[in-house]
């Protein structure tokens, strides 16, 4: 059964960060899914219909080359009619203005600079976006 608070998909390659958010979000009553693979993330997004996706941008490819695969994922999600309304939150350690503008242009719901945020701040942002999204869908 899906949690009332919401189901979060974390697309992230740093396993320790996944662990932190896994524990923290589940402890606070969220359903938690995660993956470090973009293809899998797309499938999960379509079939599990999370309430929100936390998306890291720099995700190495399977052969271990550094790549900004997050953008590809974001573009693909927004292209798919099954997933285009799911709020995507860019969750990254990139901190240039350009990355923010790009996120907004590509249809992200928010931008979180990972380094400076505590799990609690991230969770509060998640809650706010999910709430807003649900109100919008009710209308």
């Amino acid at each position: 059964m899906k949690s009332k608070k919401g189901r979060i998909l974390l697309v992230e390659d740093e396993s320790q960060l996944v662990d932190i958010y896994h524990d923290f979000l589940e402890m606070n009553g969220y359903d938690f899914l995660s993956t470090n693979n973009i293809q899998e993330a797309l499938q999960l997004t379509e079939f599990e219909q999370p309430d929100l996706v936390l998306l890291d941008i720099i995700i190495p490819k399977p052969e271990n080359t550094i790549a900004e695969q997050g953008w590809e994922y974001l573009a693909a999600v927004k292209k798919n009619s099954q997933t285009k309304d799911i709020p995507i939150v860019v969750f990254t350690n990139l901190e240039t203005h350009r990355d923010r503008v790009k996120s907004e242009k590509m249809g992200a719901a928010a931008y979180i600079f990972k380094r400076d945020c505590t799990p609690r701040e991230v969770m509060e942002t998640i809650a706010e976006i999910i709430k807003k999204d649900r109100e919008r869908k009710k209308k």
Partner: protein
Amino acid sequence: MPKIEKPDCINKNCWLAKTLNHSPYSRCQYCELKFQQCLFLHYQIISLILITFFLALFFVVEGKISELVIICIFTLVIVYGYFLNKSTDKIIKANFAQREAKLALEKLTEKLEERVDEQTKDIGEKNKYLQELLNMKTDFLRVVNHQLNTPLAVMKGYFSMMEEGSYPPDKARPAIKGGLERISSTVSDFWDAYELEGERMKMEPKKTDIAEIVNALIAEKQNLQLARERKLKIEVQKPEFEIPLAWCDCKKTAHVISNLLDNAVYYTRQGSVTVFYELIGKNYLKVNIKDTGSGVSDQDKKKLFQKFSRGKNATDLRPDGSGLGLFIAKKIIEGNGGEMVCVSAGANKGSTFSFTLPIYKNQKSTSEGEKPATREEKIVIFGKPSRQK
């Protein structure tokens, strides 16, 4: 083929070409031969001599010259002359074309050589520039590596002791937190330096009360553990004039002052740190931060404001410096239209770091109405103006 009138085409060797300019001599200007070597001229002279000779011979032998002979001779001379004239024409023009082609080719070769030289130089310069960048990158990575590894090592040390149970978590926690903060500030410094170097960082000048910033920072620095341990006297000298408002980027200037005060505290083992103000003409406010610390040797002065430069004493007194603080500070001050200098009588004789800032005189912000930079916002929810702006 260029026009004959063109002065550089005129045959300077030949008297005919220089003097006469009508048919058939107009073609002579294409020719390069000397007057005496002209075949057509030889033909004309020899034909004339031969005609005269043969007519005289006829006259002597036969006693008269028949009209038929005269007609024959002249017809032959004219017909030969005609063809010789034509072929001379062609030869001259062909020679001229060849010469022209040769000249053009020479010119082209010269030009090509010039261009190759130019491009080689260009490539050389670019190569040098790239090499510099590469060196910079190597430096950068080495420093990044060192700067990040040092606090990591400290944190790891405390953490492992804590894990073993040999060190109380309450004591280890502040050290670990300090390490985290140090890593954060190092990463910010690197990013600032990177942005300032390419002048990508935008200054947002506004009316700024420097005295207020200084007072707040001094209170903060007096509380630093190091300042208390060393019993440093940190104070402001009240000037005789009223301190004017400055026109500068408030946050970044505060960062500069904080950095200079930090430096003063780090590099002063005993004594005092004093801030005093001066007016430079009517337009500039000068802020001086004077300490009784380790000073700056003449050798270190040269590279004081350079990236990653660390003075000889610096490494002893503050092993964790990134070597970027003064570089960033100077760039920020310059970005706000001021200057930064350091005066020191030498090692262990204290030093004074001073910078100037323009005084506020109704300057208008150029960025007014523009969207303010969102860089400092750590969470931005799009489509929600209250938080974004």
